[in-house]
Protein backbone atom coordinates (compact mmCIF):
# COMPACT_ATOMS: atom_id res chain seq x y z
CA UNK A 1 0.00 0.00 0.00
CA UNK A 2 1.31 3.45 -0.94
CA UNK A 3 1.38 6.19 1.68
CA UNK A 4 -0.17 8.64 -0.79
CA UNK A 5 -1.78 7.77 -4.09
CA UNK A 6 -3.41 10.11 -6.59
CA UNK A 7 -5.35 8.69 -9.53
CA UNK A 8 -6.36 11.07 -12.33
CA UNK A 9 -7.10 13.79 -9.79
CA UNK A 10 -8.52 16.93 -11.41
CA UNK A 11 -9.71 20.23 -10.07
CA UNK A 12 -11.34 22.85 -12.29
CA UNK A 13 -12.76 26.19 -11.17
CA UNK A 14 -15.51 26.49 -13.76
CA UNK A 15 -13.57 26.41 -17.01
CA UNK A 16 -10.31 27.35 -15.34
CA UNK A 17 -7.74 24.64 -14.89
CA UNK A 18 -6.39 23.93 -11.41
CA UNK A 19 -4.94 20.47 -11.94
CA UNK A 20 -5.73 18.00 -14.69
CA UNK A 21 -5.46 14.22 -14.31
CA UNK A 22 -2.71 14.21 -11.69
CA UNK A 23 -1.49 10.68 -10.88
CA UNK A 24 1.46 9.46 -8.82
CA UNK A 25 2.15 7.35 -5.76
CA UNK A 26 4.38 8.00 -2.76
CA UNK A 27 5.84 4.90 -1.10
CA UNK A 28 5.76 4.46 2.66
CA UNK A 29 8.89 5.86 4.33
CA UNK A 30 9.91 7.82 1.24
CA UNK A 31 10.81 11.50 0.93
CA UNK A 32 8.99 12.46 -2.21
CA UNK A 33 9.51 15.78 -3.95
CA UNK A 34 6.82 17.70 -5.78
CA UNK A 35 8.28 20.37 -7.94
CA UNK A 36 6.94 22.91 -10.36
CA UNK A 37 6.96 26.63 -11.04
CA UNK A 38 4.56 29.01 -9.30
CA UNK A 39 1.02 28.49 -10.54
CA UNK A 40 1.75 24.98 -11.83
CA UNK A 41 -0.82 23.40 -9.49
CA UNK A 42 1.29 22.26 -6.50
CA UNK A 43 -0.84 23.96 -3.84
CA UNK A 44 -4.09 23.01 -5.62
CA UNK A 45 -2.98 19.36 -5.54
CA UNK A 46 -2.13 19.58 -1.85
CA UNK A 47 -5.28 21.51 -0.92
CA UNK A 48 -7.37 18.92 -2.75
CA UNK A 49 -5.46 16.16 -0.97
CA UNK A 50 -6.16 17.85 2.37
CA UNK A 51 -9.89 18.15 1.63
CA UNK A 52 -9.92 21.94 1.44
CA UNK A 53 -10.96 21.77 -2.22
CA UNK A 54 -13.42 19.26 -3.65
CA UNK A 55 -11.91 17.34 -6.57
CA UNK A 56 -13.75 17.71 -9.89
CA UNK A 57 -12.84 14.10 -10.73
CA UNK A 58 -10.36 11.39 -9.80
CA UNK A 59 -9.39 9.97 -6.46
CA UNK A 60 -6.76 10.43 -3.78
CA UNK A 61 -5.91 8.10 -0.93
CA UNK A 62 -3.64 8.51 2.07
CA UNK A 63 -2.65 5.36 3.98
CA UNK A 64 -5.26 3.55 1.87
CA UNK A 65 -8.13 5.82 2.93
CA UNK A 66 -10.11 7.91 0.46
CA UNK A 67 -9.51 11.61 1.19
CA UNK A 68 -13.02 12.59 0.12
CA UNK A 69 -14.63 10.10 2.53
CA UNK A 70 -12.34 9.65 5.50
CA UNK A 71 -10.78 13.11 5.76
CA UNK A 72 -10.95 13.40 9.54
CA UNK A 73 -9.42 9.94 10.14
CA UNK A 74 -6.67 10.63 7.60
CA UNK A 75 -5.80 13.95 9.21
CA UNK A 76 -5.11 12.16 12.50
CA UNK A 77 -2.08 10.62 10.78
CA UNK A 78 -0.95 13.71 8.87
CA UNK A 79 1.20 16.69 9.70
CA UNK A 80 0.52 19.55 7.31
CA UNK A 81 2.62 22.63 6.74
CA UNK A 82 0.89 25.15 4.46
CA UNK A 83 2.77 27.56 2.22
CA UNK A 84 0.95 30.60 3.64
CA UNK A 85 0.85 30.70 7.41
CA UNK A 86 -2.17 32.45 8.93
CA UNK A 87 -3.01 31.86 12.56
CA UNK A 88 -5.36 33.35 15.14
CA UNK A 89 -4.05 36.84 15.79
CA UNK A 90 -5.32 36.90 19.38
CA UNK A 91 -3.14 33.93 20.36
CA UNK A 92 0.53 33.51 21.19
CA UNK A 93 2.52 30.67 19.60
CA UNK A 94 2.29 28.73 22.86
CA UNK A 95 -1.51 29.10 22.99
CA UNK A 96 -1.85 28.07 19.36
CA UNK A 97 0.39 25.02 19.79
CA UNK A 98 -1.45 23.98 22.98
CA UNK A 99 -4.75 24.41 21.13
CA UNK A 100 -3.42 22.18 18.33
CA UNK A 101 -2.15 19.65 20.90
CA UNK A 102 -5.54 19.61 22.67
CA UNK A 103 -7.31 18.80 19.39
CA UNK A 104 -4.84 15.97 18.71
CA UNK A 105 -4.82 14.90 22.39
CA UNK A 106 -1.01 15.05 22.49
CA UNK A 107 0.43 13.81 25.80
CA UNK A 108 3.02 15.99 27.56
CA UNK A 109 2.41 18.70 24.99
CA UNK A 110 3.91 21.58 27.01
CA UNK A 111 7.27 19.79 27.25
CA UNK A 112 7.32 18.80 23.55
CA UNK A 113 6.42 22.35 22.49
CA UNK A 114 9.19 23.81 24.63
CA UNK A 115 11.72 21.33 23.23
CA UNK A 116 10.85 22.12 19.60
CA UNK A 117 10.67 25.86 20.27
CA UNK A 118 14.17 25.75 21.74
CA UNK A 119 15.43 23.79 18.73
CA UNK A 120 13.95 26.36 16.32
CA UNK A 121 14.67 29.39 18.55
CA UNK A 122 11.03 30.45 18.65
CA UNK A 123 9.73 32.80 21.34
CA UNK A 124 6.54 31.12 22.45
CA UNK A 125 4.82 33.89 24.37
CA UNK A 126 4.82 36.66 21.80
CA UNK A 127 1.47 37.29 20.08
CA UNK A 128 1.42 35.60 16.68
CA UNK A 129 0.57 38.92 15.05
CA UNK A 130 3.92 40.34 16.23
CA UNK A 131 5.97 37.49 14.74
CA UNK A 132 7.95 37.82 11.53
CA UNK A 133 7.06 35.56 8.59
CA UNK A 134 10.03 33.32 9.41
CA UNK A 135 8.93 32.91 13.03
CA UNK A 136 5.35 32.16 11.98
CA UNK A 137 6.82 29.48 9.72
CA UNK A 138 8.74 28.00 12.67
CA UNK A 139 5.47 27.86 14.62
CA UNK A 140 3.86 26.14 11.62
CA UNK A 141 6.70 23.60 11.45
CA UNK A 142 6.29 22.78 15.14
CA UNK A 143 2.52 22.26 14.80
CA UNK A 144 3.09 20.01 11.79
CA UNK A 145 5.31 17.56 13.72
CA UNK A 146 4.04 17.94 17.31
CA UNK A 147 1.56 15.08 17.18
CA UNK A 148 4.03 12.52 15.70
CA UNK A 149 2.37 12.16 12.28
CA UNK A 150 2.97 9.16 10.03
CA UNK A 151 2.86 11.33 6.90
CA UNK A 152 4.15 14.88 6.59
CA UNK A 153 2.79 17.07 3.81
CA UNK A 154 4.91 20.15 3.32
CA UNK A 155 3.95 22.95 0.94
CA UNK A 156 6.88 25.29 0.24
CA UNK A 157 8.16 24.68 3.78
CA UNK A 158 11.33 26.75 3.81
CA UNK A 159 9.93 30.14 2.75
CA UNK A 160 10.96 32.75 5.31
CA UNK A 161 13.51 30.55 7.08
CA UNK A 162 17.13 31.69 7.25
CA UNK A 163 19.82 29.20 6.08
CA UNK A 164 20.59 28.08 9.65
CA UNK A 165 16.93 27.30 10.35
CA UNK A 166 16.54 25.66 6.94
CA UNK A 167 19.40 23.32 7.90
CA UNK A 168 17.85 22.51 11.27
CA UNK A 169 14.54 21.87 9.56
CA UNK A 170 16.15 19.51 7.04
CA UNK A 171 17.96 17.68 9.86
CA UNK A 172 14.65 17.28 11.69
CA UNK A 173 13.04 15.88 8.52
CA UNK A 174 15.90 13.42 8.08
CA UNK A 175 15.49 12.24 11.69
CA UNK A 176 11.74 11.82 11.26
CA UNK A 177 12.23 9.97 7.99
CA UNK A 178 14.64 7.55 9.70
CA UNK A 179 11.82 6.81 12.17
CA UNK A 180 9.62 5.85 9.20
CA UNK A 181 7.73 9.07 8.55
CA UNK A 182 6.73 9.51 4.90
CA UNK A 183 7.43 13.04 3.66
CA UNK A 184 5.75 14.76 0.74
CA UNK A 185 7.84 17.82 -0.02
CA UNK A 186 6.51 20.45 -2.40
CA UNK A 187 8.85 23.17 -3.56
CA UNK A 188 9.86 25.31 -6.50
CA UNK A 189 13.50 25.22 -5.35
CA UNK A 190 15.22 22.38 -7.16
CA UNK A 191 18.22 22.29 -4.82
CA UNK A 192 15.92 21.57 -1.83
CA UNK A 193 14.36 18.66 -3.69
CA UNK A 194 17.82 17.40 -4.66
CA UNK A 195 19.00 17.50 -1.06
CA UNK A 196 15.98 15.90 0.58
CA UNK A 197 14.16 13.65 -1.83
CA UNK A 198 14.51 10.12 -3.21
CA UNK A 199 12.08 10.69 -6.07
CA UNK A 200 10.13 13.64 -7.39
CA UNK A 201 7.09 14.39 -9.49
CA UNK A 202 7.27 17.37 -11.80
CA UNK A 203 4.12 19.37 -12.39
CA UNK A 204 3.69 21.97 -15.09
CA UNK A 205 0.50 23.75 -16.18
CA UNK A 206 -1.58 21.47 -13.94
CA UNK A 207 -0.28 18.21 -15.38
CA UNK A 208 2.33 15.76 -14.13
CA UNK A 209 5.06 15.71 -16.72
CA UNK A 210 7.39 13.20 -15.07
CA UNK A 211 7.99 11.15 -11.96
CA UNK A 212 11.74 10.54 -11.71
CA UNK A 213 14.48 9.36 -9.39
CA UNK A 214 16.51 12.32 -8.23
CA UNK A 215 19.64 10.92 -9.94
CA UNK A 216 17.84 10.83 -13.30
CA UNK A 217 16.55 14.31 -12.69
CA UNK A 218 20.06 15.54 -11.93
CA UNK A 219 21.53 13.97 -15.04
CA UNK A 220 19.12 16.01 -17.15
CA UNK A 221 19.44 19.13 -15.12
CA UNK A 222 20.44 22.41 -16.71
CA UNK A 223 22.89 24.88 -15.18
CA UNK A 224 23.52 28.49 -16.03
CA UNK A 225 27.26 29.15 -16.45
CA UNK A 226 28.68 32.66 -16.11
CA UNK A 227 32.36 33.07 -17.03
CA UNK A 228 34.88 35.88 -17.13
CA UNK A 229 37.84 34.97 -19.36
CA UNK A 230 41.14 36.75 -19.79
CA UNK A 231 40.57 37.53 -23.47
CA UNK A 232 37.78 38.76 -25.70
CA UNK A 233 38.34 35.97 -28.25
CA UNK A 234 35.51 33.64 -29.21
CA UNK A 235 35.58 30.41 -27.25
CA UNK A 236 34.68 26.89 -28.27
CA UNK A 237 31.75 25.95 -26.05
CA UNK A 238 31.35 22.51 -24.48
CA UNK A 239 28.89 20.03 -25.94
CA UNK A 240 25.50 20.71 -24.31
CA UNK A 241 25.86 24.51 -24.19
CA UNK A 242 22.78 26.52 -25.13
CA UNK A 243 21.73 30.17 -25.36
CA UNK A 244 25.28 31.57 -25.40
CA UNK A 245 25.74 35.33 -24.93
CA UNK A 246 29.05 37.15 -24.97
CA UNK A 247 29.80 40.67 -23.81
CA UNK A 248 33.55 41.37 -24.01
CA UNK A 249 35.24 38.95 -21.64
CA UNK A 250 31.93 37.88 -20.09
CA UNK A 251 30.14 34.77 -21.31
CA UNK A 252 26.80 33.35 -20.22
CA UNK A 253 25.31 30.06 -21.40
CA UNK A 254 23.04 27.28 -20.21
CA UNK A 255 24.56 23.82 -19.97
CA UNK A 256 22.92 20.42 -20.08
CA UNK A 257 25.05 17.33 -19.63
CA UNK A 258 27.26 15.53 -17.16
CA UNK A 259 28.71 17.92 -14.57
CA UNK A 260 32.06 16.08 -14.78
CA UNK A 261 32.37 17.01 -18.48
CA UNK A 262 31.69 20.66 -17.69
CA UNK A 263 34.43 20.69 -15.02
CA UNK A 264 36.91 19.16 -17.48
CA UNK A 265 35.99 21.80 -20.05
CA UNK A 266 36.27 24.65 -17.48
CA UNK A 267 39.75 23.39 -16.56
CA UNK A 268 40.86 23.77 -20.14
CA UNK A 269 39.80 27.44 -20.33
CA UNK A 270 41.67 30.57 -19.27
CA UNK A 271 39.10 31.68 -16.71
CA UNK A 272 39.26 34.59 -14.25
CA UNK A 273 35.94 33.85 -12.57
CA UNK A 274 33.11 31.32 -12.86
CA UNK A 275 29.60 31.08 -11.39
CA UNK A 276 27.28 28.09 -11.75
CA UNK A 277 23.65 28.63 -10.86
CA UNK A 278 20.19 27.17 -11.24
CA UNK A 279 18.22 28.78 -14.02
CA UNK A 280 14.57 29.57 -13.34
CA UNK A 281 12.30 26.55 -13.26
CA UNK A 282 10.50 27.36 -16.46
CA UNK A 283 13.83 27.22 -18.36
CA UNK A 284 14.72 23.96 -16.64
CA UNK A 285 11.42 22.39 -17.65
CA UNK A 286 11.66 23.65 -21.22
CA UNK A 287 15.10 22.18 -21.53
CA UNK A 288 14.23 19.04 -19.60
CA UNK A 289 11.58 18.08 -22.11
CA UNK A 290 13.48 19.23 -25.16
CA UNK A 291 16.31 16.94 -24.13
Amino acid at each position, binding site marked *: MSAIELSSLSKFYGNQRGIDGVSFAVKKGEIFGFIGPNGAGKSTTIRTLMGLLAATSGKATIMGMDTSVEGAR*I*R*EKIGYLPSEV*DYYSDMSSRELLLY*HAAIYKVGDAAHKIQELATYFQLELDRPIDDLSYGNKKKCAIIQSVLHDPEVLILDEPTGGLDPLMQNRFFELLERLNKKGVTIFFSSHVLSEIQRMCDRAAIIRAGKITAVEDITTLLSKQMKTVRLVTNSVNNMVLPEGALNHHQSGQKHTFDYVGPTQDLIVWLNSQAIIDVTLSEPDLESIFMNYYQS
Partner: protein
Amino acid sequence: MNSVIFKKELKRNRKNTAIWSAILVGFTALILSIFPSFSEMGEEMAKLMSSLPEEYAKALGMDEETWSSIIGYYGTYYGIYITLLMGIFTASTGATIIGKEERDGTAEFLLTRPISRGSIAATKLGVLGTLFVIVYGIQMLAAVIGLLIFGEEVNWSVFIAMHVHGFFLVGFFTASGVFMSSFLSPKLNYMGPVVGLIFGSYFLNAISMATEKVSWLGYISPYHYLNLTAKNGVLELNLITCFGASVVTAILLWISFKRYLSRDIVG
Protein backbone atom coordinates in the same frame (compact mmCIF):
# COMPACT_ATOMS: atom_id res chain seq x y z
CA MET B 1 -19.48 18.87 18.37
CA ASN B 2 -15.87 19.37 19.37
CA SER B 3 -15.43 20.59 22.94
CA VAL B 4 -11.94 22.06 22.37
CA ILE B 5 -13.16 24.25 19.50
CA PHE B 6 -16.39 25.06 21.37
CA LYS B 7 -14.48 26.47 24.35
CA LYS B 8 -12.08 28.41 22.15
CA GLU B 9 -14.91 29.92 20.11
CA LEU B 10 -16.80 30.97 23.24
CA LYS B 11 -13.64 32.63 24.55
CA ARG B 12 -13.04 34.31 21.22
CA ASN B 13 -16.54 35.84 21.21
CA ARG B 14 -16.78 36.76 24.89
CA LYS B 15 -15.80 40.43 24.52
CA ASN B 16 -18.30 41.08 21.74
CA THR B 17 -21.03 39.24 23.62
CA ALA B 18 -20.31 41.19 26.81
CA ILE B 19 -20.48 44.52 24.94
CA TRP B 20 -23.80 43.71 23.25
CA SER B 21 -25.25 42.32 26.49
CA ALA B 22 -24.26 45.53 28.30
CA ILE B 23 -25.89 47.63 25.56
CA LEU B 24 -29.13 45.64 25.79
CA VAL B 25 -29.20 45.67 29.61
CA GLY B 26 -28.43 49.40 29.67
CA PHE B 27 -31.14 50.15 27.13
CA THR B 28 -33.71 47.96 28.92
CA ALA B 29 -32.89 49.62 32.26
CA LEU B 30 -33.09 53.08 30.70
CA ILE B 31 -36.50 52.67 29.10
CA LEU B 32 -38.04 50.96 32.15
CA SER B 33 -36.61 53.50 34.56
CA ILE B 34 -38.39 56.39 32.80
CA PHE B 35 -41.78 54.64 32.69
CA PRO B 36 -42.89 56.04 36.09
CA SER B 37 -42.47 59.59 34.74
CA PHE B 38 -44.66 58.80 31.70
CA SER B 39 -47.18 57.04 33.91
CA GLU B 40 -47.48 60.08 36.19
CA MET B 41 -48.30 62.25 33.17
CA GLY B 42 -51.41 60.06 32.65
CA GLU B 43 -53.97 62.25 30.90
CA GLU B 44 -51.40 64.43 29.18
CA MET B 45 -49.91 61.36 27.47
CA ALA B 46 -53.39 60.20 26.44
CA LYS B 47 -53.94 63.64 24.86
CA LEU B 48 -50.59 63.45 23.14
CA MET B 49 -51.48 60.03 21.78
CA SER B 50 -54.77 61.29 20.39
CA SER B 51 -52.97 64.16 18.69
CA LEU B 52 -50.60 61.79 16.84
CA PRO B 53 -51.57 60.79 13.30
CA GLU B 54 -53.40 57.48 13.53
CA GLU B 55 -51.15 55.84 10.94
CA TYR B 56 -48.03 56.86 12.85
CA ALA B 57 -49.28 55.36 16.11
CA LYS B 58 -50.34 52.18 14.34
CA ALA B 59 -46.99 51.86 12.59
CA LEU B 60 -45.16 52.03 15.90
CA GLY B 61 -47.67 49.77 17.63
CA MET B 62 -48.70 52.49 20.10
CA ASP B 63 -52.09 52.85 21.78
CA GLU B 64 -53.36 54.15 25.11
CA GLU B 65 -51.96 51.08 26.90
CA THR B 66 -48.51 52.14 25.76
CA TRP B 67 -48.48 54.82 28.43
CA SER B 68 -50.84 53.49 31.02
CA SER B 69 -49.34 50.01 31.64
CA ILE B 70 -45.68 49.18 31.97
CA ILE B 71 -45.98 46.05 29.81
CA GLY B 72 -47.64 48.01 26.97
CA TYR B 73 -44.91 50.61 27.23
CA TYR B 74 -42.11 47.99 27.39
CA GLY B 75 -43.63 46.06 24.45
CA THR B 76 -43.43 49.11 22.18
CA TYR B 77 -39.72 49.53 22.84
CA TYR B 78 -39.10 45.79 22.80
CA GLY B 79 -40.56 45.55 19.31
CA ILE B 80 -38.84 48.63 17.96
CA TYR B 81 -35.39 48.60 19.51
CA ILE B 82 -34.53 45.54 21.55
CA THR B 83 -35.26 42.89 18.94
CA LEU B 84 -33.49 45.06 16.35
CA LEU B 85 -30.37 45.39 18.49
CA MET B 86 -30.38 41.73 19.46
CA GLY B 87 -31.04 40.65 15.88
CA ILE B 88 -28.16 42.78 14.60
CA PHE B 89 -25.78 41.15 17.10
CA THR B 90 -26.85 37.56 16.55
CA ALA B 91 -27.34 37.79 12.77
CA SER B 92 -23.97 39.51 12.23
CA THR B 93 -22.30 36.93 14.49
CA GLY B 94 -24.10 34.18 12.55
CA ALA B 95 -22.91 35.67 9.28
CA THR B 96 -19.28 35.70 10.38
CA ILE B 97 -18.87 32.80 12.80
CA ILE B 98 -17.96 30.38 10.01
CA GLY B 99 -16.77 32.76 7.29
CA LYS B 100 -14.43 34.64 9.65
CA GLU B 101 -12.02 31.71 9.50
CA GLU B 102 -11.80 32.10 5.72
CA ARG B 103 -11.57 35.89 5.88
CA ASP B 104 -8.74 35.73 8.45
CA GLY B 105 -6.97 32.89 6.63
CA THR B 106 -7.32 30.53 9.62
CA ALA B 107 -9.72 28.13 7.83
CA GLU B 108 -6.77 26.18 6.46
CA PHE B 109 -5.48 25.59 9.99
CA LEU B 110 -8.88 24.59 11.37
CA LEU B 111 -9.93 22.34 8.49
CA THR B 112 -6.67 20.41 8.40
CA ARG B 113 -7.15 19.18 11.99
CA PRO B 114 -8.63 15.68 12.44
CA ILE B 115 -12.19 16.98 12.74
CA SER B 116 -14.87 16.57 10.11
CA ARG B 117 -16.35 19.65 8.49
CA GLY B 118 -19.73 18.60 9.81
CA SER B 119 -18.40 18.61 13.36
CA ILE B 120 -16.77 22.01 12.86
CA ALA B 121 -19.98 23.51 11.43
CA ALA B 122 -22.08 21.93 14.21
CA THR B 123 -19.68 23.30 16.84
CA LYS B 124 -19.77 26.78 15.35
CA LEU B 125 -23.58 26.71 15.19
CA GLY B 126 -23.62 25.41 18.77
CA VAL B 127 -21.50 28.38 19.85
CA LEU B 128 -23.81 30.75 17.96
CA GLY B 129 -26.84 29.23 19.69
CA THR B 130 -25.14 29.54 23.07
CA LEU B 131 -24.25 33.20 22.49
CA PHE B 132 -27.82 33.87 21.37
CA VAL B 133 -29.28 32.24 24.48
CA ILE B 134 -26.80 34.10 26.74
CA VAL B 135 -27.63 37.53 25.27
CA TYR B 136 -31.33 36.75 25.12
CA GLY B 137 -31.36 35.44 28.71
CA ILE B 138 -29.42 38.41 30.09
CA GLN B 139 -31.75 40.93 28.42
CA MET B 140 -34.83 39.05 29.58
CA LEU B 141 -33.52 38.89 33.13
CA ALA B 142 -32.81 42.63 33.05
CA ALA B 143 -36.37 43.21 31.80
CA VAL B 144 -37.88 41.07 34.58
CA ILE B 145 -35.89 42.94 37.24
CA GLY B 146 -36.78 46.30 35.66
CA LEU B 147 -40.48 45.45 35.47
CA LEU B 148 -40.48 44.34 39.11
CA ILE B 149 -38.75 47.54 40.21
CA PHE B 150 -40.60 50.10 38.08
CA GLY B 151 -43.98 48.46 37.44
CA GLU B 152 -46.77 48.22 39.96
CA GLU B 153 -48.80 45.61 38.14
CA VAL B 154 -47.25 43.47 35.39
CA ASN B 155 -49.21 41.25 33.02
CA TRP B 156 -46.70 38.41 32.88
CA SER B 157 -48.60 36.38 30.30
CA VAL B 158 -48.16 39.27 27.82
CA PHE B 159 -44.48 39.46 28.77
CA ILE B 160 -44.00 35.74 28.14
CA ALA B 161 -45.83 35.84 24.78
CA MET B 162 -43.75 38.85 23.73
CA HIS B 163 -40.46 37.21 24.64
CA VAL B 164 -41.32 33.83 23.14
CA HIS B 165 -42.24 35.56 19.86
CA GLY B 166 -39.05 37.64 20.15
CA PHE B 167 -37.00 34.48 20.66
CA PHE B 168 -38.21 32.93 17.42
CA LEU B 169 -37.96 36.23 15.55
CA VAL B 170 -34.33 36.82 16.57
CA GLY B 171 -33.62 33.14 15.94
CA PHE B 172 -34.90 33.57 12.39
CA PHE B 173 -32.66 36.62 11.85
CA THR B 174 -29.69 34.69 13.25
CA ALA B 175 -30.27 31.81 10.84
CA SER B 176 -30.69 34.33 8.00
CA GLY B 177 -27.21 35.69 8.80
CA VAL B 178 -25.72 32.18 8.62
CA PHE B 179 -27.63 31.46 5.40
CA MET B 180 -26.47 34.70 3.80
CA SER B 181 -22.82 33.98 4.57
CA SER B 182 -23.01 30.47 3.11
CA PHE B 183 -23.79 31.90 -0.34
CA LEU B 184 -21.79 35.14 -0.32
CA SER B 185 -18.08 35.85 -0.15
CA PRO B 186 -16.52 35.43 3.31
CA LYS B 187 -14.63 38.67 2.66
CA LEU B 188 -17.86 40.69 2.53
CA ASN B 189 -18.73 43.03 5.42
CA TYR B 190 -22.05 41.55 6.56
CA MET B 191 -23.13 44.35 8.89
CA GLY B 192 -24.81 46.26 6.04
CA PRO B 193 -26.87 43.34 4.66
CA VAL B 194 -27.78 42.21 8.20
CA VAL B 195 -28.97 45.67 9.31
CA GLY B 196 -30.80 46.03 5.98
CA LEU B 197 -32.59 42.72 6.45
CA ILE B 198 -33.72 43.47 10.01
CA PHE B 199 -34.67 47.13 9.51
CA GLY B 200 -36.29 46.27 6.19
CA SER B 201 -38.42 43.58 7.86
CA TYR B 202 -39.40 45.96 10.63
CA PHE B 203 -40.37 48.84 8.37
CA LEU B 204 -42.30 46.62 5.95
CA ASN B 205 -44.45 45.51 8.86
CA ALA B 206 -44.75 49.07 10.24
CA ILE B 207 -45.91 50.40 6.85
CA SER B 208 -48.37 47.54 6.44
CA MET B 209 -49.89 48.36 9.84
CA ALA B 210 -50.06 52.10 9.11
CA THR B 211 -52.31 51.86 6.08
CA GLU B 212 -54.59 49.14 4.79
CA LYS B 213 -53.75 49.94 1.17
CA VAL B 214 -50.39 48.23 1.53
CA SER B 215 -51.28 45.79 4.29
CA TRP B 216 -50.08 42.96 2.04
CA LEU B 217 -46.50 44.13 2.64
CA GLY B 218 -46.76 42.70 6.14
CA TYR B 219 -46.93 39.18 4.79
CA ILE B 220 -43.29 39.30 3.71
CA SER B 221 -42.09 40.44 7.12
CA PRO B 222 -41.49 38.03 10.03
CA TYR B 223 -42.67 40.80 12.39
CA HIS B 224 -46.16 40.30 10.96
CA TYR B 225 -46.28 36.69 12.12
CA LEU B 226 -44.46 37.06 15.42
CA ASN B 227 -46.27 39.98 16.97
CA LEU B 228 -44.39 41.75 19.75
CA THR B 229 -46.70 44.52 20.87
CA ALA B 230 -49.87 44.18 22.93
CA LYS B 231 -53.06 45.66 21.51
CA ASN B 232 -55.27 47.16 24.21
CA GLY B 233 -53.25 45.23 26.76
CA VAL B 234 -53.66 41.84 25.05
CA LEU B 235 -51.02 39.69 23.35
CA GLU B 236 -51.57 36.00 22.98
CA LEU B 237 -48.87 33.45 22.44
CA ASN B 238 -49.16 32.05 18.92
CA LEU B 239 -47.56 28.63 19.04
CA ILE B 240 -48.39 27.86 15.39
CA THR B 241 -46.34 30.79 14.08
CA CYS B 242 -43.58 29.93 16.56
CA PHE B 243 -43.50 26.42 15.13
CA GLY B 244 -43.54 27.82 11.57
CA ALA B 245 -40.65 30.15 12.40
CA SER B 246 -38.64 27.34 13.95
CA VAL B 247 -39.18 25.19 10.82
CA VAL B 248 -38.01 28.03 8.52
CA THR B 249 -35.03 28.67 10.84
CA ALA B 250 -34.10 24.98 10.82
CA ILE B 251 -34.34 24.85 7.00
CA LEU B 252 -32.06 27.90 6.63
CA LEU B 253 -29.50 26.37 9.00
CA TRP B 254 -29.68 22.97 7.31
CA ILE B 255 -29.08 24.43 3.83
CA SER B 256 -26.16 26.49 5.19
CA PHE B 257 -24.75 23.41 6.94
CA LYS B 258 -24.96 21.24 3.81
CA ARG B 259 -23.39 23.95 1.72
CA TYR B 260 -20.48 24.29 4.13
CA LEU B 261 -19.76 20.57 3.85
CA SER B 262 -19.13 20.69 0.11
CA ARG B 263 -17.77 24.18 -0.41
CA ASP B 264 -14.21 24.96 -1.54
CA ILE B 265 -12.37 26.78 1.21
CA VAL B 266 -10.72 30.05 0.25
CA GLY B 267 -7.04 29.97 1.12
